[in-house]
């Protein structure tokens, strides 16, 4: 199936009974949904997989009612995934933020590869300490790379509120990660 076909057109095709559209949407959307869920849930893979399957299940059910031009599939999905993650965070409180990442000792990783992994783990750990809405806004803006108006549509808030949430979230991240500056390779 052509990669130029939009998510919306593929979803309409699936709603009309086209099985190849499901294959294209699955390969295109599953990694994005899974990655976002992983970051929202502090790196818990099993929970992120359940959220991904549930979000995609809702997408398949929505397909016959989807109307072209009303919304973007990605916006709709990010909203569903956000709500599923926040529900789980509130219900289970399963993210043990102290166990997300803390190296056994304070020595800096030696290889670039290890350093990149350590940095990613450190950020995920620091994100897990943010309030839910700040975490959601920061992930959508700075990792998923969405524009503020789309984030506002996903979170059902104003663009100004998105800017405020991301600014506060970044400030808290900078404060929480400052003590690990040397360990993460950002020392002088």
């Amino acid at each position, binding site marked *: 199936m052509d990669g130029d076909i939009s998510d919306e057109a593929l979803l309409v095709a699936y709603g009309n009974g086209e099985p190849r559209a499901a294959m294209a949407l699955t390969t295109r959307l599953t990694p994005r949904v899974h990655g976002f869920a992983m970051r929202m849930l502090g790196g818990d893979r099993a929970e992120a997989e359940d959220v991904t399957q549930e979000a995609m299940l809702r997408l398949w059910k929505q397909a016959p009612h989807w109307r072209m031009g009303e919304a973007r599939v990605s916006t709709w999905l990010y909203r569903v995934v956000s709500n599923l993650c926040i529900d789980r965070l509130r219900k289970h409180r399963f993210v043990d933020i102290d166990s997300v990442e803390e190296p056994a000792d304070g020595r800096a990783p030696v290889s670039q590869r290890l350093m990149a992994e350590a940095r990613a783990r450190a950020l995920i750990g620091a994100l897990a300490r943010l309030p839910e809405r700040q975490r959601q806004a920061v992930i959508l803006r700075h990792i998923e790379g969405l524009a503020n108006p789309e984030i506002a549509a996903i979170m059902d808030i104003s663009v100004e509120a998105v800017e405020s949430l991301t600014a506060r979230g970044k400030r808290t991240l900078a404060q929480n990660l*400052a003590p690990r500056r040397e360990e993460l390779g*950002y020392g002088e």
Partner: protein
Amino acid sequence: MVNENKDMLEDAALQDLFRAARAEAEMPRPELYRRVLADSQALLPAPARPAAPGARRPDALPRLRAGFARLLGGWSLLAGLSAAMLAGLWIGYAHPGILPHAGSGGPMAGTGPGMGPGVGHSFALEDFQPGPDAFLLLLEDG
């Protein structure tokens, strides 16, 4: 990297951490793809049934006629239009009097009933141009 505020990680470092998080994203396991695809197949809607080749809806022709009649202002206007068209055809055929050289070898001479230059009569190009009497007749008609 120069650090002005020890209590805050620099913005450049924070942006670098965001890049690292994007680059280090864990890909879904094949099992997850299988689960998602299995759901998609279980919930796949029935395909829309296409019309048989060459089949025409039984009410298509009456609908087309009605639409055409509406376009022209209804059946009464359509009947009037047909009558006017026939009348115009008859006038053009049977009343060549206003045309130049009528009955004397003009282009319409011999085509009406009871008129005719006779077999073997031929026309020149000038015969198809209106003469001065044709203009007089048009002025009289207003």
